[in-house]
């Protein structure tokens, strides 16, 4: 009997929950599980509710990694009104499956084609806009100035050859020249993206990630030849450690350089580096005279096709796109606003990133957002394999080419 009561209580409670969600709230699903993003999102929602007193937001916050699997389920089974996701090819499956809604009218009505210009291309598919970008961050080379000093290096390397030459000095000083932790695979892709964009340029890199170029192409091989130069100076056993473990190596002075995104600055600083000892530089030049492309993954909000509150959702997207909202949100996030009328924070690394990205020729999203999921996974495994055993390169490239033919048919 008690069980029956508990059961009815449970179902009743469930029904109540469901009905409150139906009462006219805007439902947002997102993955701001880390402290800073969570705070930024809370502020964003508070600001939106203040600007629109008649709308109440119901926010479901997911764990960052779990979200990537959960989104497939909730978009088909029980879509929220707004969902957080990523720009570029990463949103393609949901656009093609008709799960994200066309929001071109939001862009038109709010003049976003102008204010969000830098990210417009990565939000466009079939000539329509499928979401609104709210933040991005730069990638580059973070380095430990103390290690550079110890190794007797005075100037930042401008070219790849200088970088490699420095590696010899850093090795003599007892540190790894370049570190990474590829247990979760993606950190290795940052190195590949940069090597490819510096060796072959942005267009080739985009063609490669779009599956238009075979992986056995000599130009791809050339990228790995450049990579092979630095492998002997990289952290051994990188495959077994997480990116945070490698960040600790940089902070402790056991490694000199780290190709990373700006989100890692927080981790570097917690490990003991300061604005004075942590350095940031552009990835060095390889092929002379190539226009400089950079890596800048963009985070986005999308209205779902199954949204029950379309008008409210559009209001929310317009609010997220506004200069004021992006200024406030990115101040808390410690990242760059996409809206070019928004203000950039005064943190030196954010300022450096703004300088880097605003003068760049083109922006890539990141290997696992530019390439389709299956290709990205195989590619990143290949990069991990290459770093632990460069001699296997021909087999790796053959296997990647096989995957390419399967993925893009």
């Amino acid at each position, binding site marked *: 009997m008690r069980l029956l009561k508990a059961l009815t209580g449970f179902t009743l409670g469930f029904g109540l929950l469901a009905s409150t969600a139906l009462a006219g709230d805007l439902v947002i699903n997102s993955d701001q599980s880390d402290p800073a993003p969570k705070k930024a999102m809370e502020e964003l929602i508070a600001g939106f509710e203040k600007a629109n007193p008649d709308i109440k937001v119901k926010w479901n916050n997911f764990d960052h*990694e779990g979200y*990537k*699997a959960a989104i*497939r389920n909730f*978009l*088909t089974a029980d879509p929220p009104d707004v969902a957080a996701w990523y720009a570029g090819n990463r949103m393609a*499956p*949901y656009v*093609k*499956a008709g*799960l994200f809604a066309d929001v071109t009218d939001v862009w038109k009505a709010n003049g976003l084609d102008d204010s969000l210009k830098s990210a417009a291309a990565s939000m466009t598919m079939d000539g329509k806009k499928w979401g609104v970008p709210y933040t991005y961050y730069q990638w580059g080379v973070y380095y430990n100035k103390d290690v550079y000093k110890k190794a007797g290096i005075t100037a930042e390397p401008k070219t790849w050859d200088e970088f490699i030459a420095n590696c010899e000095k850093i090795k003599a000083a007892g540190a790894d020249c370049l570190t990474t932790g*590829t*247990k*979760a*695979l993606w950190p290795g892709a940052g190195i590949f993206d940069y090597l490819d964009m510096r060796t072959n340029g942005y267009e080739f890199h985009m063609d490669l990630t779009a599956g238009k170029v075979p992986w056995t192409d000599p130009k791809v091989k050339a990228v790995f030849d450049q990579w092979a130069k630095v492998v002997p100076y990289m952290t*051994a*056993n*990188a*495959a*077994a*450690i997480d990116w945070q*473990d490698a960040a600790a190596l940089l902070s402790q002075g056991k490694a000199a350089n780290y190709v990373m995104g700006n989100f890692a600055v927080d981790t570097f600083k917690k490990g003991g580096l300061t604005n004075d000892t942590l350095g940031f530089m552009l990835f060095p030049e390889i092929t002379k005279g190539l226009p400089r492309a950079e890596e800048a993954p963009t985070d986005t909000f999308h209205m779902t096709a199954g949204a029950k509150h379309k008008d409210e959702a559009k209001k929310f997207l317009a609010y997220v796109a506004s200069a004021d909202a992006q200024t406030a949100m990115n101040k808390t996030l410690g990242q760059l606003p996409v809206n070019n009328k928004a203000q950039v924070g005064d943190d030196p690394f954010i300022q450096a990133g703004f300088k880097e990205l605003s003068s760049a020729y083109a922006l890539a999203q990141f290997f*696992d957002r530019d390439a389709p*999921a*299956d290709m*990205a*996974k195989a590619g990143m*495994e*290949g990069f*991990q*394999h290459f770093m*632990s*055993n460069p001699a296997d390169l021909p087999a790796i490239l053959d*296997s990647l080419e*096989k995957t390419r033919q*399967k993925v893009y048919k």
Partner: protein
Amino acid sequence: MAATPQAGFWKRNQRSLAPWLFLAPGLLVFMIYVIIPIFQSIWISFYDWDGLGPKTWAGLDNYRNLLDDDSFYMSLKNNLIWLVLYMLAVPAGLGVALFLNQTVAGIRLYKSLFFFPFVISQVVVGLIFSWFYAPGFGLLPHIFKILTGHEIAVLAEAKYATYGIIAAGLWPQIAYCMILYLTGLNNINPEQVEAARMDNAKGIYMLWHIIIPQLRPATFIAVVVTVIGALRSFDLISIMTVGGPFGSSRVLSYFMYEQALSEYGTAMGYGAAIAVVLFAIMLVFITLFIVRMLSQERTA
């Protein structure tokens, strides 16, 4: 249900219908959650489907691709390694059980300590072992460094990763087999042991001819549990290596998850094909066990 027009029908067939009625809820749930999904998986394995868009018929393409996929063979090979090495848990569990089957002060405490790894979650086991193996601060690389002069990071080496995970998996599995054998040893017929002693049986001879035959039911359960444990190994791999480095520690179940359900995998049809292959392998073992159990029941 009893409200049939002829009250007589229920009365006449009550005895034969009652068991089915009692079984019905269980059967229904078993149908919905086990039997039907098996056929659905087989069905999906003939399609090319990303889990969201429309399905397109692919016939045997998924299976053909599977035969041409190096990762598949790697996973299959690792599954075999798991099966063979995981079996070590059975003799090891027997050894520990024999060792603990004595009456000394505090033996209950030792028994529970030996059983401890089975009680803690597999995720915790995985974490403990990955720290044990971790380059830089783990215990094992330190020991290697003292002995050989250079560190070996077990989980970063494609050659060793699978063995490292199996070692972690054996820890709780041995504890499980031990408990099975300990209860088995409690049920040994003391008169037989006494009689064997009078005939001067000792040591290995006693163990092999008197004790182990009496432990057969325990051995059977231990083998079944270990085989199934080896085939469904997933959590340790997901915690310790995420299938890596570069996919060298995947097994079929993890490969399936990666292809169909993970962050980078949307190939539902392909994943289903892997699941079908895994199911076929399991079916071989399950059939063997069932045949054996039935024949035992008949002779008993």
